[in-house]
Protein backbone atom coordinates (compact mmCIF):
# COMPACT_ATOMS: atom_id res chain seq x y z
CA UNK A 1 0.00 0.00 0.00
CA UNK A 2 2.45 2.61 1.09
CA UNK A 3 4.50 3.39 -1.94
CA UNK A 4 7.75 5.21 -1.36
CA UNK A 5 6.84 8.83 -1.51
CA UNK A 6 8.66 10.85 -4.08
CA UNK A 7 8.00 14.05 -2.26
CA UNK A 8 8.13 14.60 1.41
CA UNK A 9 7.69 17.85 3.19
CA UNK A 10 11.31 18.35 4.06
CA UNK A 11 12.42 17.76 0.55
CA UNK A 12 10.15 20.46 -0.69
CA UNK A 13 12.77 23.19 -0.77
CA UNK A 14 15.77 21.11 -1.65
CA UNK A 15 14.29 19.15 -4.45
CA UNK A 16 12.93 21.97 -6.48
CA UNK A 17 15.24 21.44 -9.41
CA UNK A 18 14.80 17.86 -10.38
CA UNK A 19 16.10 17.18 -13.82
CA UNK A 20 17.35 20.43 -15.19
CA UNK A 21 20.22 21.21 -12.89
CA UNK A 22 21.42 24.13 -14.90
CA UNK A 23 19.34 27.18 -14.10
CA UNK A 24 21.22 29.12 -16.76
CA UNK A 25 19.40 27.08 -19.34
CA UNK A 26 16.15 28.44 -17.95
CA UNK A 27 17.46 31.99 -17.97
CA UNK A 28 18.68 31.67 -21.54
CA UNK A 29 15.41 30.10 -22.67
CA UNK A 30 13.41 32.95 -21.24
CA UNK A 31 15.85 35.40 -22.78
CA UNK A 32 15.47 33.98 -26.24
CA UNK A 33 11.70 34.00 -25.88
CA UNK A 34 11.72 37.70 -25.05
CA UNK A 35 14.16 38.68 -27.76
CA UNK A 36 12.28 36.60 -30.31
CA UNK A 37 9.05 38.32 -29.33
CA UNK A 38 10.77 41.68 -29.79
CA UNK A 39 11.76 40.65 -33.29
CA UNK A 40 8.37 39.13 -34.12
CA UNK A 41 6.51 42.23 -33.05
CA UNK A 42 8.95 44.57 -34.72
CA UNK A 43 10.09 46.10 -31.45
CA UNK A 44 6.59 47.05 -30.44
CA UNK A 45 7.40 46.65 -26.78
CA UNK A 46 3.92 47.27 -25.45
CA UNK A 47 2.78 44.32 -27.49
CA UNK A 48 5.70 42.25 -26.22
CA UNK A 49 4.76 43.09 -22.63
CA UNK A 50 1.22 42.01 -23.34
CA UNK A 51 2.32 38.72 -24.87
CA UNK A 52 4.61 37.97 -21.94
CA UNK A 53 1.81 38.77 -19.55
CA UNK A 54 -0.54 36.44 -21.38
CA UNK A 55 2.03 33.64 -21.38
CA UNK A 56 2.56 34.14 -17.68
CA UNK A 57 -1.17 34.10 -17.05
CA UNK A 58 -1.49 30.69 -18.68
CA UNK A 59 1.48 29.42 -16.71
CA UNK A 60 0.08 30.77 -13.45
CA UNK A 61 -3.27 29.07 -13.89
CA UNK A 62 -1.49 25.73 -14.13
CA UNK A 63 1.29 26.37 -11.69
CA UNK A 64 -1.08 27.13 -8.83
CA UNK A 65 -2.03 23.45 -8.68
CA UNK A 66 1.56 22.45 -8.18
CA UNK A 67 1.98 25.13 -5.58
CA UNK A 68 -1.04 23.90 -3.63
CA UNK A 69 -0.15 20.25 -4.05
CA UNK A 70 3.39 20.75 -2.86
CA UNK A 71 2.77 23.14 -0.03
CA UNK A 72 -0.74 22.35 1.12
CA UNK A 73 -1.39 26.03 1.64
CA UNK A 74 -4.89 26.88 2.78
CA UNK A 75 -6.94 29.96 2.02
CA UNK A 76 -5.31 33.12 3.33
CA UNK A 77 -7.45 35.12 5.71
CA UNK A 78 -5.97 38.47 4.83
CA UNK A 79 -4.24 39.96 1.81
CA UNK A 80 -1.21 40.48 4.05
CA UNK A 81 -1.04 36.75 4.53
CA UNK A 82 -1.30 36.29 0.78
CA UNK A 83 1.65 38.60 0.32
CA UNK A 84 3.74 36.60 2.76
CA UNK A 85 2.71 33.38 1.09
CA UNK A 86 3.71 34.66 -2.35
CA UNK A 87 7.07 35.89 -1.24
CA UNK A 88 8.15 33.34 1.34
CA UNK A 89 6.65 30.22 -0.18
CA UNK A 90 5.76 30.83 -3.83
CA UNK A 91 8.89 32.59 -5.03
CA UNK A 92 10.94 30.40 -2.74
CA UNK A 93 9.93 27.08 -4.23
CA UNK A 94 9.77 28.14 -7.85
CA UNK A 95 12.64 30.59 -8.22
CA UNK A 96 14.49 30.13 -4.94
CA UNK A 97 14.37 33.82 -4.12
CA UNK A 98 12.48 35.71 -1.46
CA UNK A 99 11.31 39.12 -2.56
CA UNK A 100 10.69 41.72 0.11
CA UNK A 101 7.11 42.76 0.75
CA UNK A 102 6.89 46.52 1.26
CA UNK A 103 5.10 49.71 0.39
CA UNK A 104 1.65 48.77 1.64
CA UNK A 105 -1.04 51.30 0.92
CA UNK A 106 -3.25 52.48 3.75
CA UNK A 107 -6.19 50.30 2.76
CA UNK A 108 -3.99 47.18 2.72
CA UNK A 109 -4.94 46.34 -0.83
CA UNK A 110 -1.77 47.19 -2.69
CA UNK A 111 1.80 46.23 -1.96
CA UNK A 112 5.17 45.94 -3.64
CA UNK A 113 7.43 42.97 -4.11
CA UNK A 114 11.06 44.01 -4.35
CA UNK A 115 13.19 41.44 -6.12
CA UNK A 116 16.70 41.61 -4.75
CA UNK A 117 17.81 39.30 -7.49
CA UNK A 118 16.02 38.28 -10.61
CA UNK A 119 16.94 34.89 -12.02
CA UNK A 120 15.14 35.72 -15.25
CA UNK A 121 17.43 38.61 -16.00
CA UNK A 122 20.93 37.26 -15.37
CA UNK A 123 23.25 38.24 -18.24
CA UNK A 124 20.65 40.57 -19.67
CA UNK A 125 21.49 44.02 -20.85
CA UNK A 126 18.93 45.98 -22.79
CA UNK A 127 20.43 47.19 -26.05
CA UNK A 128 20.93 50.92 -26.24
CA UNK A 129 19.15 52.24 -29.25
CA UNK A 130 19.38 55.83 -30.40
CA UNK A 131 16.09 56.70 -28.68
CA UNK A 132 16.39 54.21 -25.83
CA UNK A 133 12.81 53.18 -26.41
CA UNK A 134 13.41 49.66 -25.16
CA UNK A 135 14.38 50.99 -21.74
CA UNK A 136 11.22 53.03 -21.57
CA UNK A 137 8.77 50.50 -22.88
CA UNK A 138 9.87 46.94 -22.30
CA UNK A 139 9.27 45.22 -18.97
CA UNK A 140 11.63 42.34 -19.46
CA UNK A 141 10.25 40.13 -16.65
CA UNK A 142 6.61 40.88 -17.34
CA UNK A 143 5.91 37.15 -17.39
CA UNK A 144 6.05 37.22 -13.58
CA UNK A 145 3.12 39.61 -13.47
CA UNK A 146 1.10 37.23 -15.58
CA UNK A 147 2.00 34.24 -13.46
CA UNK A 148 0.90 35.98 -10.27
CA UNK A 149 -2.31 37.20 -11.85
CA UNK A 150 -3.18 33.76 -13.23
CA UNK A 151 -2.33 31.88 -10.06
CA UNK A 152 -4.23 34.24 -7.78
CA UNK A 153 -7.24 34.19 -10.03
CA UNK A 154 -7.50 30.46 -9.60
CA UNK A 155 -7.83 30.94 -5.86
CA UNK A 156 -10.52 33.54 -6.40
CA UNK A 157 -8.40 36.67 -6.01
CA UNK A 158 -8.79 39.24 -8.76
CA UNK A 159 -5.57 41.24 -8.81
CA UNK A 160 -3.64 43.61 -11.04
CA UNK A 161 0.10 43.11 -11.20
CA UNK A 162 2.56 45.44 -12.88
CA UNK A 163 6.19 46.47 -12.76
CA UNK A 164 7.15 49.91 -11.54
CA UNK A 165 10.93 49.56 -11.54
CA UNK A 166 13.51 47.31 -13.10
CA UNK A 167 17.26 47.37 -12.63
CA UNK A 168 17.61 46.56 -16.32
CA UNK A 169 16.25 50.00 -17.04
CA UNK A 170 18.75 51.57 -14.71
CA UNK A 171 16.44 51.80 -11.67
CA UNK A 172 17.84 51.17 -8.22
CA UNK A 173 15.77 48.02 -7.69
CA UNK A 174 13.32 45.69 -9.36
CA UNK A 175 9.88 46.25 -7.97
CA UNK A 176 6.48 44.95 -8.93
CA UNK A 177 3.17 45.98 -7.50
CA UNK A 178 0.07 43.93 -6.71
CA UNK A 179 -3.34 45.43 -6.22
CA UNK A 180 -6.29 43.41 -4.96
CA UNK A 181 -9.36 44.40 -6.93
CA UNK A 182 -11.82 41.96 -5.56
CA UNK A 183 -12.14 38.75 -3.65
CA UNK A 184 -14.45 36.65 -5.79
CA UNK A 185 -16.52 35.33 -2.93
CA UNK A 186 -19.18 33.73 -5.08
CA UNK A 187 -16.65 31.53 -6.79
CA UNK A 188 -15.18 30.00 -3.68
CA UNK A 189 -15.87 26.28 -3.94
CA UNK A 190 -18.36 24.89 -1.44
CA UNK A 191 -16.98 22.99 1.48
CA UNK A 192 -14.48 25.48 2.84
CA UNK A 193 -15.05 27.07 6.18
Amino acid at each position, binding site marked *: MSKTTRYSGDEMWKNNVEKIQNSELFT*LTYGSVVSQLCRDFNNNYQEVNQQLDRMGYNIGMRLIEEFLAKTGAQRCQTFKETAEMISKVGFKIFLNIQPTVTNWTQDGKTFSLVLNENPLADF*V*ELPMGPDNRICRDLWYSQVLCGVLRGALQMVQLDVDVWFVKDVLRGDDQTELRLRLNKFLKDEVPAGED
Partner: protein
Amino acid sequence: MSSYYFVIIGTRDNPIYELEFSSFRSGVSGIQVPGKSQFSPSVKEILPFISHSALDIIEDAQWSTNSFNLGKIDSFYGLMINAFISQGNIKYVLCYDANGSGTNGSSSPSLNKNDENSIKQFFTEANELYVKCLLNPFYSVNNAITSPDFDHRMKLLARKYL
Protein backbone atom coordinates in the same frame (compact mmCIF):
# COMPACT_ATOMS: atom_id res chain seq x y z
CA MET B 1 55.23 52.72 -23.22
CA SER B 2 53.66 50.62 -25.93
CA SER B 3 50.50 51.34 -27.79
CA TYR B 4 47.93 48.69 -28.49
CA TYR B 5 45.14 48.17 -30.94
CA PHE B 6 42.74 45.38 -30.01
CA VAL B 7 39.98 44.09 -32.24
CA ILE B 8 37.47 41.26 -32.00
CA ILE B 9 36.52 39.79 -35.32
CA GLY B 10 33.32 37.85 -35.91
CA THR B 11 32.78 34.69 -37.89
CA ARG B 12 32.28 36.54 -41.15
CA ASP B 13 35.56 38.42 -40.79
CA ASN B 14 33.64 41.45 -39.60
CA PRO B 15 35.04 43.53 -36.77
CA ILE B 16 32.64 43.60 -33.83
CA TYR B 17 34.63 45.52 -31.24
CA GLU B 18 37.78 47.62 -31.28
CA LEU B 19 39.80 49.39 -28.68
CA GLU B 20 42.96 51.48 -28.81
CA PHE B 21 45.03 52.16 -25.76
CA SER B 22 48.55 52.48 -24.52
CA SER B 23 50.27 50.54 -21.81
CA PHE B 24 48.83 51.21 -18.43
CA ARG B 25 51.98 49.98 -16.75
CA SER B 26 53.96 52.66 -15.10
CA GLY B 27 57.01 52.80 -17.29
CA VAL B 28 59.12 55.74 -18.17
CA SER B 29 56.58 58.45 -17.85
CA GLY B 30 56.90 60.98 -20.54
CA ILE B 31 54.47 63.43 -21.91
CA GLN B 32 52.10 60.71 -23.00
CA VAL B 33 48.77 60.43 -21.29
CA PRO B 34 48.40 56.88 -20.02
CA GLY B 35 45.58 55.04 -21.71
CA LYS B 36 45.79 56.98 -24.94
CA SER B 37 47.40 55.23 -27.84
CA GLN B 38 50.47 56.84 -29.31
CA PHE B 39 50.29 55.48 -32.81
CA SER B 40 51.33 57.97 -35.41
CA PRO B 41 48.45 59.07 -37.61
CA SER B 42 49.75 57.20 -40.61
CA VAL B 43 49.87 53.94 -38.66
CA LYS B 44 46.59 54.60 -36.98
CA GLU B 45 44.63 54.65 -40.18
CA ILE B 46 46.03 51.39 -41.47
CA LEU B 47 45.57 49.42 -38.22
CA PRO B 48 42.27 47.88 -39.32
CA PHE B 49 43.93 46.80 -42.54
CA ILE B 50 46.86 45.29 -40.73
CA SER B 51 44.64 43.27 -38.48
CA HIS B 52 42.46 42.28 -41.38
CA SER B 53 45.41 41.04 -43.35
CA ALA B 54 46.40 38.94 -40.35
CA LEU B 55 43.20 36.93 -40.68
CA ASP B 56 44.61 34.74 -43.42
CA ILE B 57 47.58 33.91 -41.27
CA ILE B 58 45.26 33.10 -38.38
CA GLU B 59 43.27 30.75 -40.57
CA ASP B 60 46.44 28.89 -41.38
CA ALA B 61 47.95 29.07 -37.93
CA GLN B 62 44.90 27.62 -36.19
CA TRP B 63 45.60 24.17 -37.65
CA SER B 64 49.19 24.07 -36.53
CA THR B 65 48.52 24.24 -32.82
CA ASN B 66 46.20 22.81 -30.20
CA SER B 67 45.90 25.92 -28.15
CA PHE B 68 43.54 28.78 -28.78
CA ASN B 69 46.28 31.26 -28.24
CA LEU B 70 48.17 31.50 -31.52
CA GLY B 71 50.88 33.73 -30.11
CA LYS B 72 52.72 36.22 -32.25
CA ILE B 73 51.72 35.50 -35.80
CA ASP B 74 52.90 38.47 -37.81
CA SER B 75 54.71 41.74 -37.72
CA PHE B 76 54.43 44.80 -39.86
CA TYR B 77 57.09 47.50 -39.81
CA GLY B 78 57.74 47.17 -36.11
CA LEU B 79 54.16 46.38 -35.20
CA MET B 80 53.66 43.00 -33.61
CA ILE B 81 50.47 41.08 -34.12
CA ASN B 82 49.22 38.49 -31.64
CA ALA B 83 46.08 36.49 -32.12
CA PHE B 84 43.70 34.19 -30.30
CA ILE B 85 40.87 32.19 -31.75
CA SER B 86 37.88 30.88 -29.86
CA GLN B 87 35.88 27.68 -30.24
CA GLY B 88 33.16 29.67 -31.92
CA ASN B 89 35.58 30.99 -34.55
CA ILE B 90 35.75 34.43 -33.03
CA LYS B 91 39.18 35.94 -33.58
CA TYR B 92 40.92 38.28 -31.21
CA VAL B 93 43.74 40.31 -32.68
CA LEU B 94 46.13 42.58 -30.84
CA CYS B 95 48.55 44.89 -32.67
CA TYR B 96 51.19 46.69 -30.67
CA ASP B 97 54.45 48.46 -31.23
CA ALA B 98 57.15 46.48 -29.56
CA ASN B 99 59.63 49.31 -29.41
CA GLY B 100 57.56 51.89 -27.77
CA SER B 101 55.85 54.53 -29.78
CA GLY B 102 58.20 54.85 -32.70
CA THR B 103 59.34 58.40 -32.04
CA ASN B 104 60.91 57.97 -28.62
CA GLY B 105 62.66 54.66 -28.20
CA SER B 106 62.52 54.70 -24.45
CA SER B 107 60.46 51.57 -23.87
CA SER B 108 61.48 48.01 -23.32
CA PRO B 109 63.54 46.64 -26.20
CA SER B 110 61.68 43.53 -27.24
CA LEU B 111 59.01 41.22 -26.15
CA ASN B 112 59.88 39.00 -23.24
CA LYS B 113 58.21 35.89 -21.94
CA ASN B 114 56.26 37.83 -19.38
CA ASP B 115 54.54 39.95 -21.99
CA GLU B 116 53.67 36.91 -24.04
CA ASN B 117 52.02 35.46 -20.98
CA SER B 118 50.10 38.53 -20.05
CA ILE B 119 48.82 38.87 -23.58
CA LYS B 120 47.64 35.30 -23.41
CA GLN B 121 45.88 36.06 -20.11
CA PHE B 122 44.36 39.14 -21.63
CA PHE B 123 43.00 37.15 -24.56
CA THR B 124 41.60 34.43 -22.36
CA GLU B 125 39.73 36.83 -20.17
CA ALA B 126 38.58 38.88 -23.11
CA ASN B 127 37.11 35.69 -24.48
CA GLU B 128 35.29 35.11 -21.20
CA LEU B 129 33.87 38.60 -21.36
CA TYR B 130 32.74 37.95 -24.89
CA VAL B 131 30.98 34.75 -23.84
CA LYS B 132 29.13 36.63 -21.10
CA CYS B 133 28.12 39.18 -23.65
CA LEU B 134 26.89 36.40 -25.91
CA LEU B 135 24.56 35.19 -23.15
CA ASN B 136 22.60 38.40 -23.39
CA PRO B 137 19.42 37.49 -25.25
CA PHE B 138 19.49 40.76 -27.15
CA TYR B 139 22.92 40.11 -28.58
CA SER B 140 23.45 37.76 -31.48
CA VAL B 141 26.63 36.50 -33.06
CA ASN B 142 28.44 39.01 -35.29
CA ASN B 143 26.54 42.00 -33.93
CA ALA B 144 28.75 44.91 -33.01
CA ILE B 145 29.27 45.04 -29.27
CA THR B 146 27.99 48.39 -28.10
CA SER B 147 27.45 47.67 -24.44
CA PRO B 148 29.19 50.32 -22.33
CA ASP B 149 29.55 47.74 -19.59
CA PHE B 150 31.54 45.48 -21.88
CA ASP B 151 33.70 48.39 -22.93
CA HIS B 152 34.37 49.30 -19.33
CA ARG B 153 35.30 45.75 -18.36
CA MET B 154 37.54 45.47 -21.39
CA LYS B 155 39.44 48.58 -20.33
CA LEU B 156 39.85 47.16 -16.85
CA LEU B 157 41.32 44.03 -18.41
CA ALA B 158 43.70 46.10 -20.47
CA ARG B 159 44.80 47.99 -17.38
CA LYS B 160 45.36 44.73 -15.56
CA TYR B 161 47.45 42.89 -18.11
CA LEU B 162 48.99 45.27 -20.62
